[in-house]
């Protein structure tokens, strides 16, 4: 039965922890979201459950977590809509050879290295309930993801959005995001079909029909919202509610088809009209409550499932080191190498690689899906969460080291002079 007092207390504790740790991380030039992710881990068995198991058990008893999970899933549905909304397909045009090569290599290189690592980790951290193909593809997809929202925020904070490297990074991250989610959708279908009562053809044919309907029917209806916005410079509450219902309907459709409800929310955001004012308005409407209230709940729920260094002995730390090295080599190294071959100077190519290596909360979203569908084990989940934290944490200091702010400002000033 729902213990409302406990749920509200949990939310309050999570929000306080998220704001405090987020603030502290901002003080060391890390994005707020990095601190919130760490706050979630600190509230779980990796710290609070280890230091004060009694407090942890009283505050987060296992039976109460389903409510926290439900709230965090609703938050993720809205968040994925926001991510899709912020994705502008027109950004993918006009970057030519460098963007195509860099984005594709930045997916393929970590994907292959992830698959290669799976050869070693599958017999050690998986079981015969998961096929090697499912495990290896998931490892590849998880290694190749880039946190589009975190990357955009870092670029914005450093005034890099309009630089050549910044625009290229956004274009590549957008390609990576779409590709990563498509691959993940395939993996989810692959895993679910072998265990579901529904025939595979229903999922496959239904998914194709769903995408076609979204692209050729729903997408043509959506500009009506934008026209209504232009008339009054705002949307009525009824129209905002209609958008929410459309997001939920799309999420339910993909969940029913056996993909995952987050894909539906993401696709609905991706096909929304992309005029800057309309997008800004919707982002403002949806982002605040999601980012401030619901995402910290997701981080906390993730943290409660993560047991960094708890059990497993030295071997777990060894596997963690392998995963982190492979993830950085594949993503950072692959992107940097491809950008350099496409003609970028070393410094910019290295910076692009560092930015693409940011995995952030998109990685956590994917890992939670993997754990939910059983394609990764709890230990593998914890290792990958640690990898997501390390690769996200290293972005800002590494970027400052490779491409100091003073150099960046000089470059941006020069661009402004040339434009003038």
């Amino acid at each position, binding site marked *: 039965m729902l213990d409302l007092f406990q749920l509200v207390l949990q939310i309050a504790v999570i929000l306080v922890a998220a704001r405090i740790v987020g603030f502290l991380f901002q003080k060391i030039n890390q994005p707020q979201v990095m601190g919130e992710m760490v706050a979630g881990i600190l509230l779980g068995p990796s710290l609070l459950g280890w230091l004060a198991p009694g407090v942890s058990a009283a505050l987060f008893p296992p039976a109460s977590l389903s409510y926290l999970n439900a709230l965090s899933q609703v938050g993720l549905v809205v968040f994925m809509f926001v991510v899709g909304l912020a994705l502008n397909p027109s950004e993918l045009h006009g970057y030519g050879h460098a963007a195509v090569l860099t984005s594709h290599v930045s997916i*393929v290189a970590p994907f292959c290295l992830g698959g290669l690592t799976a050869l070693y980790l599958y017999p050690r951290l998986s079981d015969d309930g998961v096929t090697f193909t499912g495990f290896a593809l998931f490892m590849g997809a998880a290694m190749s993801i880039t946190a589009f929202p975190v990357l955009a925020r870092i670029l914005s904070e450093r005034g890099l959005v309009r630089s050549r490297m910044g625009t290229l990074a956004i274009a590549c991250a957008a390609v990576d995001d779409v590709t990563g989610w498509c691959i993940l959708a395939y993996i989810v279908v692959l895993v679910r079909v072998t265990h579901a009562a529904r025939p595979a053809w229903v999922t496959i044919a239904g998914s194709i029909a769903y995408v076609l309907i979204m692209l050729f029917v729903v997408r043509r209806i959506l500009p009506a919202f934008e026209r209504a916005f232009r008339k009054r410079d705002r949307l009525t509450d009824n129209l905002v509610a209609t958008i929410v219902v459309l997001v939920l309907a799309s999420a339910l459709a993909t969940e029913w088809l056996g993909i995952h409800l987050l894909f539906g929310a993401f696709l609905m955001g991706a096909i929304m009209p992309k005029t800057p004012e309309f997008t800004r308005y919707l982002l403002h409407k949806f982002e605040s409550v999601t980012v401030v209230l619901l995402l910290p709940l997701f981080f906390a729920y993730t943290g409660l499932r993560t047991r960094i260094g708890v059990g*497993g002995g030295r071997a777990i730390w060894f596997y963690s080191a392998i995963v982190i090295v492979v993830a950085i080599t594949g993503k950072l190294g692959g992107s940097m190498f491809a950008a350099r071959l496409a003609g970028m100077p070393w410094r910019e190519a290295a910076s692009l690689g560092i930015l693409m290596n940011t995995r952030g909360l998109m990685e956590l979203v994917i890992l939670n899906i993997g754990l939910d569908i059983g394609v990764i084990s709890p230990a593998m989940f914890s290792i990958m969460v640690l990898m997501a934290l390390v690769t996200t944490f290293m972005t800002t200091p590494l970027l400052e080291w490779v491409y100091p702010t003073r150099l960046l400002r000089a470059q941006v000033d020069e661009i402004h002079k040339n434009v003038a």
Partner: protein
Amino acid sequence: MYLLLVGVPVLGLLGILEAGRSIAAPLSIGGEWALESTPTADCANPPGSLQRQLAWSVSQSGNQALITLHDGYGTTLQATIDGATFTAKSPVASITATIAGKLDQRTLEGKVTLLGCAPVAFHAVRQAPRKRGA
């Protein structure tokens, strides 16, 4: 250049997926289990909660597993899987069992020893494997 940097690794990935098919992973025991056992009378100081224990859940990562007894106290045992042999230990109990059956009909057959008691034979049936696609 594109073919070299993208096409070749994709072919390599296909090779990895093919090579991985022959790799065997530890037997899956994760999920909820129901036990059938005969409570022993040969027990100096019977830990009643465990004696009545009829279910447990297993969280598995490779050949390591964590068993949580549904005893109201959340008693846990660290377990190891070696082939078809399953052993688990904690300060209050130890389990040795053989894993049998196909993936969807997995069973455990063995003995559970509670602190201060004689070993008790048990037969456990997996009720639901680790959640997949739910």
